[in-house]
């Protein structure tokens, strides 16, 4: 099953199934992985973090609701929230988890502790 799930090579990952894209300006764009969206089922709503909120690595940043469950999205790094995907369609978190389905962006001092694609693939297989 894991082999069919997408794990793009240009991203970093967490054990809690978040992905991180390092942007040109040094900030981190965050979303949930294909594995996570598959486990959650149809996503109906995302409760975003407040812009300018300071988050420690591991803090609950956002909440994702499917029809029958709620899951927390944890801050993959320590930093401050700079933007949220305001126009997010929850269905895109399922259909385009790495692209249109991004959740929020935050400042990022270090990517220490994040997993590379190979390490993440190891976790979900």
């Amino acid at each position: 099953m894991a082999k069919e799930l997408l794990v793009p090579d240009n991203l970093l990952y967490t054990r809690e199934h978040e992905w991180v894209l390092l942007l040109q300006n040094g900030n981190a764009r965050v979303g949930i992985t294909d594995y996570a969206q598959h486990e959650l089922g149809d996503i109906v709503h995302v409760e975003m973090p407040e812009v300018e909120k300071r988050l420690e690595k591991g803090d609950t940043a956002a909440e994702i609701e499917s029809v029958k469950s709620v899951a927390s999205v944890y801050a993959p790094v320590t930093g401050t929230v700079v933007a949220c995907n305001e126009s997010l369609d929850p269905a895109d978190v399922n259909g385009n988890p790495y692209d249109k389905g991004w959740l929020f962006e935050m400042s990022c001092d270090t990517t220490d502790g994040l997993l590379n694609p190979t390490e993440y693939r190891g976790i979900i297989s």
Partner: protein
Amino acid sequence: MKKFNEVELEPPKFYRTEGEVVRRFTRLSTLNFSVDANFYPLGSCTMKYNPKICDFISTLPGLRELHPMRIGEDSAQARTLRRILSELNEMLSDLCGFSSFSLSPAAGAHGELSGCLIIRKYHADRNDSIRNEMLIPDSAHGTNPASAAIAGFKVVTIKSGPTGCVDIDDLKRHLSNRTAGMMMTNPNTLGLFEERVLEICELVHSAGGLMYYDGANLNAIVGVSSPGAMGFDVGHIDLHKTFAVPHGGGGPGAGPIGVRKGLEDLLPGPIFSGGKMISPSRSIGKVIGFNGNVGALVRAWAFIKTLGSEGVERASRDAVIAANYVRVSLKDIYPSFVSERFCAHEVLLSAEKLKREKGINALMVAKALIQMGFHPPTIYFPMLVHEALLIEPTETENLETLDEFISAMRRIAELSLEKISKFPNNTIIRHPDEARAARNPVLKG
């Protein structure tokens, strides 16, 4: 071609005549499964037969037309009502091993909240308000932590052990001088009797906490054992479960809250006792506007009176026998980690093996049962078991019905995936899009 009871589900803008209302709602009613018409083995819901004498009593005009503020008056009607509510209090107290009940809470969750408030005040009155933690098993129904949180407690989750019962070591690790109490149900939500309940109550009492009994599963024990005998201090009963008050499509029920000796003063008033109404001296206060769901309370009174004490005990015994009969008849196809053990009044099975071998999961089993005219059991709860099927047959279903259900469940395991994916095709709608309903809420016409 139109079916005889086909009805436009969308509400009309208005009705021209009473006839239009009657026509529409008569047809709508035929779209429902109901205990009157169908086997309804929902785990933890106790969908037993609702005797019609109970409904009849709630329609008596002297009761129907009685204003809540007149219930304390000297009329024959008020006196009779106070008498039977007092008798209900007495009977429930005796059956549960408690000293007194408040009949105010309108539902189980309401009872839980009231119970949490009682525990809170108990400690506050003893200047022990540091006790702000409520211990709750991870298998507990969601109303337990929700009620505790609304009462101002911090919820501390206690793990279930490998047997499905409360992990005593985990409990011990979480007991402290901040423990206000613990909420439990026995049997638990896995349908198992908590074998160490006496020990658990002792441990929590030694730590200074009170024990709360969630009465959702009382139908397994009432008349045989009681929460009072197990050591519980406070507890609620779901009258719409154990005492046959009909579910009405989601309510109304009633969740009377009982206490052991020494805690009566804390109950939410009014208390019906000896034909009078009492305001407890250290009450947590009013939990509802008027006197509680009296229409439901008198139904429960009539149910217990017509059953008698022997009947109450016999009902619990038959409920446990019936659940175990279903268990042994289906555990080969739907095994779970508890299906080899005796269960209480409900059995926790699983479609995990079926899913692995044939791709049929609990949701598909449910849809196939609907196709065959059975209301499905509870699915995907408790979450400790994957593909959970929590089945509670109750004591009021005859052997023919139980055997029909068992053979339906066995047949489902033989169905092709292609066939199951089309079920149900004999109900007015099929596989509604719940994601869409949540993504784009349309909540009125």
